[in-house]
């Protein structure tokens, strides 16, 4: 996927991040919260911002990269406007979640972990969303879709297109 980080358009975000780093960098264990803030502001971890974090906190970029790649929530590519999280936890799995995921992948024409070229949708594989009583479950941003059936997916996704 091709993209560039636009400094001009993200000016405010960068300022917010700089303030957050300044306020937190001396706290113990500040790296993860700073990275989470970065992802919250920009939707992903732009390399340019990781370099900024490295300079401001004195943490080597390699170490930051190590942390970023360890945790599955951190992303180096932009996440779409709508984050489709499909639960593949045990309860959902036995209720046919794999089929739901495949159907969504087919509908959006991307694989899990991917983002559509128009930056509208991303599919994320989740390991239990904590709604196991409603299995199989997937969410689109904050909307929860319980007891989903394959047949419903087209219609649900259409609401966000």
């Amino acid at each position, binding site marked *: 996927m091709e993209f560039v980080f636009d400094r001009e358009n993200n000016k405010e975000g960068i300022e917010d991040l700089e303030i957050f780093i300044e306020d937190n960098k001396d706290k*113990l*264990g*500040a*790296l*993860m*919260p700073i*990275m*989470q803030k970065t992802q919250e502001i920009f939707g992903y971890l732009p390399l340019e911002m990781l370099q900024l974090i490295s300079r401001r906190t004195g943490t080597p970029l390699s170490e930051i990269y*190590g*942390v970023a790649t*360890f*945790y*599955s*929530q*951190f992303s180096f590519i932009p996440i779409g406007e709508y984050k489709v999280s499909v639960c*593949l*936890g*045990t*309860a959902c*799995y*036995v*209720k046919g979640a794999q089929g739901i995921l495949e159907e969504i992948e087919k509908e959006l024409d991307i694989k899990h972990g991917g983002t559509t070229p128009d930056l509208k949708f991303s599919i994320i594989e*989740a*390991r*239990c*969303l*904590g*709604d*196991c*009583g*409603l*299995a199989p479950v997937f969410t689109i941003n*904050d909307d929860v879709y319980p007891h989903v059936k394959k047949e419903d997916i087209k219609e649900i996704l259409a609401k966000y297109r």
Partner: protein
Amino acid sequence: MLVMDMLDEIKDKNRKQLEERLTQKGGYIIDEDGIKLDGDYFKKQVRIALKNCDIIDPTNIEEYIAMDGYFSLKNILNNMSQQEVIDIMKQSGLRGRGGAGFPTGRKWETALQYSSDKKYVICNADEGDPGAFMDRSILEKDPHSVLEAMAIAGFAIGSDQGFIYVRAEYPVAVKRLKAAIAQAKEYGVLGENIFGTNFNFDIELRLGAGAFVCGEGTALIESIEGKRGMPRTKIYRTAHRGLWQKPTIINNVETLANIPVIFQKGVDWFTKIGTEKSPGTKVFALVGKIETAGLVEVPMGMPLHEIIYDIGGGVPDGKSFKAVQTGGPSGGCIPENLLDTPVDFESLAKIGSIMGSGGMVVMDNTDCMVDIAKFFLDFTVDESCGKCVPCREGTKRMLELLEKITSGNGKKEDIDTMERLAVTISSASLCGLGQTAANPVVSTLRYFRDEYEAHVMDKKCPAGSCQSLLQYFITDKCIGCTKCAKVCPVHCISGKVKQLHVIDQDICIKCGACQETCPVNAITRS
């Protein structure tokens, strides 16, 4: 700031309002024993950790106080010494609900014994077991019970700083906790000079970022320290050297939720519930192929069948029960003939599963046990942090073998290889993740060996779930509408209009598309 005596006042006022509201709403039993949820689902349940869930308004601290909240903390700060608090915890016999079942009182005592300028209390809210959601419910529906317990723990071991490590997948829980912490500070039950005493205790939230292994205590500590969440080599107990090398206690959300109640109602009351070695209750997330899915909190020692049938209503859709999986990726599958096993730490371990965090996934005759084992191994391979070889490499080899078997290429010796691998992985891994990773395989091999053998020898999946081992056939019900031939992605169906169609088994990829389109259900699979 809240002065001591105002607690009673707040309680009285809000209790009345709460009872009125609930009476109007209906669905509650309100009597001298307190407030309980009404209905068949709740009859056999005993709710301690969940006692306020779905009853109080979690965003209002005064409703928590109305249910006797913060009275335990007040009483402890006023009347008890650190050792007395720990003695009560020890006498209660409360064991960790996060998985390992370690006695909470003993953990606290160790942390008290080491003197240090700083100590930490951590609440483990990483709830990683896919299929369990009790911690989420407590955090969202009764956050103050966790805060109160953490303050009690802080007082007991001499700590003034707590952390709650919440998984990122629980945004609502995070929001509720943030609000609850702010309220608690406003009311003076957290922060400096709590209840006007010289005890200070603050709580900070830390978010996980999607790594299952961070539920393991030392990995969680690494993560709070801002590093990759890899478990430590256990030279020291965390109660001795934990977060930033200071004495630290880590307790699970559900464990904590029990604590204020124990101090309120007393040790005698608590130890009468449950079994001798596992007092109290356990919350289970009863999910999967079950009529009524949900959270059930029952006294320890209740037999599995009572939970699954009497509370959960058994398996729906006319299918038959095959197994119940407890303990998540570290647990095992329990067959029907062992359903009289009481649920407590020892009994479940004896039959090759574990209590774990309380996931209880019911499976029916259409679930393939080999596939389930593969599902868990796939999870473990994904989540292994990679620090130690037996876990990193061993689980991968195990998964490859399972993939081989479920795709119809398994050999008899593969089963033996898996059994040998299981011994190595379990005995040589660094942390609990690896040490228990083989459990799903070992337990299914123990109780459902015939299913493995059917996959290997007969190249058949008895549950009809492993796709590569299925065969699709068109029966003579076929009306020759040609729909199946059109939808087949590999064009392996031939036949003339209005004549019986045939599937070429060598080309068929078993996608099932034909079966779904057939208007007369002429296509069967076996």
